[in-house]
């Protein structure tokens, strides 16, 4: 970081500024370094500008949000490589003793919700889980991590920040790690299909095999590769995870990220209050959504499936929903042996 008094290029000043910002981000400067920095700042009026700009750009939140889908390798791989070296250096017995010594007592709790039931699960760290209908999950709080295995259904997570203990929701095909976040994770009927929606903060979606998706496109395409990756989601983004095949026919995990209008997730999360909010969805989709919450069967006859419906309904009352739909679409409703049929004359 030595500089002389001659006029330097803007790029050169940027380089020095970057070095100082990185160092001050790492630790406090020594007295000697502080003097050196001050000398550099005094040497050229542009130095302070370069330094101020470097600091501003480094902390600029937009920069962080430009990174979300940048690739990076799984840290687990780096870690396992290190452990491998360790094991090679030490004798196997010692390693096993060390591992045994570190084993901690882990308490696992299972939560299940019935059809139509929505459960609030407050956790000891201030995080809160809302379990949607017909769902089950397992909570494991360890010293170094908070793990939730979502086995079935859907849940919404409001995560208390704790950088030392990552909060991870593990699904069948991918896991969603919170970075100061509220988000929902849903396991779909089809094997390996998941949907993750971020309401606030940021979530890292990690899977043994997934690839990056073109950024800034409104709808991103399914993609996949052999790389071991994470994709970062921001607020108002949704990712659909599914199992697919690559060009050579071998299985891979694929994901698709969408940007949604702010507010859509909040509406879709009305289930937490026992309500279902529809806006221009097809009647078939709405009926399918109701079927998640009750055993009441609703059947449609004729070309009604594609009719659009909107409104706010009690998830627990599919009968009221059916009557409201019949009224607004001016169609008939019949109940036979507990099954509701909607039809046009």
């Amino acid at each position, binding site marked *: 970081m030595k500089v002389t008094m001659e006029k330097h*290029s*803007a*790029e050169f*000043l*940027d380089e020095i*500024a*970057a*070095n100082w*910002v*990185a160092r001050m*981000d*790492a*630790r406090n400067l020594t007295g000697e370094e*502080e003097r050196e*920095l*001050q000398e550099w700042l005094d040497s050229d*009026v*542009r130095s*302070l*500008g*370069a*330094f*101020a*700009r470097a*600091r*501003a*750009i*480094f*902390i*600029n939140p*937009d*920069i*962080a*949000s*430009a*990174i*979300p*889908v*940048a*690739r*990076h*390798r799984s*840290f687990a791989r*780096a870690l396992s490589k*290190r452990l491998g070296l360790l094991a090679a250096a030490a004798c196997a017995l010692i390693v096993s003793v060390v591992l045994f010594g570190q084993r901690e007592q882990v308490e696992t709790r299972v939560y299940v919700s019935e059809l139509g039931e929505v459960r609030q699960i407050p956790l000891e760290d201030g995080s809160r889980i809302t379990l949607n209908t017909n769902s089950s999950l397992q909570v494991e709080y360890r010293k170094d991590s908070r793990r939730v295995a979502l086995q079935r259904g859907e849940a919404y997570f409001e995560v208390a920040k704790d*950088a030392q203990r990552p909060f991870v929701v593990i699904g069948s095909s991918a896991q969603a790690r919170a*970075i100061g976040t509220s988000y929902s994770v849903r396991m779909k009927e089809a094997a390996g299909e998941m949907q993750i929606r971020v309401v606030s903060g*940021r979530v*890292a979606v990690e899977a043994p095999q997934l*690839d*990056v998706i*073109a*950024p*800034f*496109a409104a709808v991103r395409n399914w*993609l*996949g*590769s*052999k*790389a071991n990756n994470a994709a970062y989601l921001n607020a108002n983004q949704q990712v659909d995870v599914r199992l697919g095949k690559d060009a050579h026919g071998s299985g891979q995990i694929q994901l698709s990220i969408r940007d949604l209008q702010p507010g859509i997730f909040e509406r879709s999360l009305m289930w937490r209050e026992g309500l279902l909010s529809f806006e221009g969805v097809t009647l078939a989709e709405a009926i399918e959504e109701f079927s998640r919450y009750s055993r009441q069967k609703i059947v449609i006859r004729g070309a009604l499936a594609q009719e659009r419906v909107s409104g706010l309904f009690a998830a627990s009352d599919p009968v009221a929903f059916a009557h409201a739909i019949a009224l607004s679409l001016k169609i008939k409703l019949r109940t036979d042996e507990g099954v509701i049929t909607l039809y046009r004359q």
Partner: protein
Amino acid sequence: MLKRTEPITDERAQWLAAHIIPHEAALRAWLRGKAFLGCDVDDIVQETYAILAAKRTVEAITNPKTYAFQVAHSLVLQQLRHSRVVPIAAVADIGDLEAGADEPSLEDAAIACDELRQVELAIEALPRQTRTAFILRRVEGLSQQAIASRMGLSEHTIEKHISRGIKLLLAQFGRGGRGVWAASKEKKRPDESDDGKAQRRIPG
């Protein structure tokens, strides 16, 4: 000169990040249009930041974008006064300065979006360890110390990676930095195969 332990406070850096950085591309575009006046865009921008950083308070600035344009404006004029020959066209042209600052920010947003895409591509093109360290620091918010132990590298090495990442952003941001991006794109990373490379390319 008075010794300052903190040349620029966190608060001021945040203010610059929130209110000036988003308009830097527009400011540079406007200054580039004045290139015939003989002023160096990078120099003017750095001096503008210096003035904004050195101000005792920014509370009174209600429109930071206009203010930054005005500061740059005065710096251009200052340079013009110091230069011996001032082309007549230059003085007349200065009149549209304010107009530049008052332009609707729709175009700014487009520029900023394009810029972030460039930044993203550039970050992707960083060497693997630099990229990992930078993401851990800026996206995941880990300290450099924590990153060092996580990646099994010395803190000094992590500092170098972070510094390299910042350098790239400084070159990329505002300046367009297409040169940087193109250069790093050509250079294939030795740790990466060509797998999925075509897929990863951004359409359009």
